[in-house]
């Protein structure tokens, strides 16, 4: 067997390219964030779709996040434009297994610069945090600096964001949910 790695360093577009894609609300909100730390923008459509997926279920739900990432002045800016909910999964109130078919759902959407920026799942009435299992999934399969992990507690109405292979917590003030969400 011969294995020749052809992976390329993923060059993020510059922050300026993001400005043109944002509405006035998001642009204003971004100005109030700390650019030295990662920033996360969740489009209103993406947020609504995630909330609809996780609903008020007392079992965990989840999926992939698609969007774009940009090289900020200090740290990355990650924009989640849409979500892809897992359809084949096993879940309880404290665990979730999303079958590999979720990647098949995402692949047709990965065009015109859209990439898999991360994943999301719910912690119903447990609080929004990353467990050790969540950190392992982030480290193993969302290992780029721009990869985002979101946890939603739909019961307590909490949201937490983590980025990169080390699951760095993104301060709440650096997480923007689009206007009208």
């Amino acid at each position, binding site marked *: 067997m011969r294995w020749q790695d052809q992976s390329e360093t993923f060059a993020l577009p510059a922050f300026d390219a993001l400005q043109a894609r944002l509405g006035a609300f998001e642009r204003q909100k971004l100005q109030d964030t700390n650019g030295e730390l990662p920033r996360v923008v969740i489009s209103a459509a993406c947020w609504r779709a995630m909330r609809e997926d996780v609903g008020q279920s007392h079992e965990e739900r989840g999926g992939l996040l698609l969007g774009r990432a940009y090289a900020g002045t200090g740290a990355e800016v990650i924009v989640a434009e849409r979500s892809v909910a897992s359809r084949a999964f096993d879940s309880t109130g404290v665990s979730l297994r999303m079958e590999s078919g979720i990647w*098949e759902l995402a*692949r047709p959407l990965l065009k015109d610069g859209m990439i898999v920026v991360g994943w999301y799942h719910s912690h119903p009435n447990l609080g929004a945090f990353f467990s050790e299992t969540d950190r392992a999934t982030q480290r193993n399969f969302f290992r780029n600096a721009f990869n985002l992990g979101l946890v939603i507690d739909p019961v307590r109405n909490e949201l937490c964001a983590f980025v990169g292979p080390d699951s760095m917590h993104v301060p709440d003030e650096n997480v923007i949910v689009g206007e009208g969400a």
Partner: protein
Amino acid sequence: MADVKFIVRTADQTRKAEVEMDRTSIGSDIIQAAVDNWALPADTDYALVNVTTGKSLVPMQLLDENFVKPGDVLEVQPVLVAGGW
């Protein structure tokens, strides 16, 4: 038996490799090679999909011409797990 040269990539499409394998190799050989070369976790379930043809390859599937042609792109797709505890 002849070798076949194809592309393997991760499901998020951030890594890819050109791979040449004997046609007597099986699907699980590709997954194992991806695990070894990209430091993916071994204790995870993966699916292998030929995205050029849309066909899934089961672990014991031989890389015969019905499943892998030269230049095809194969994707290694992990099961994702999460837990609240």
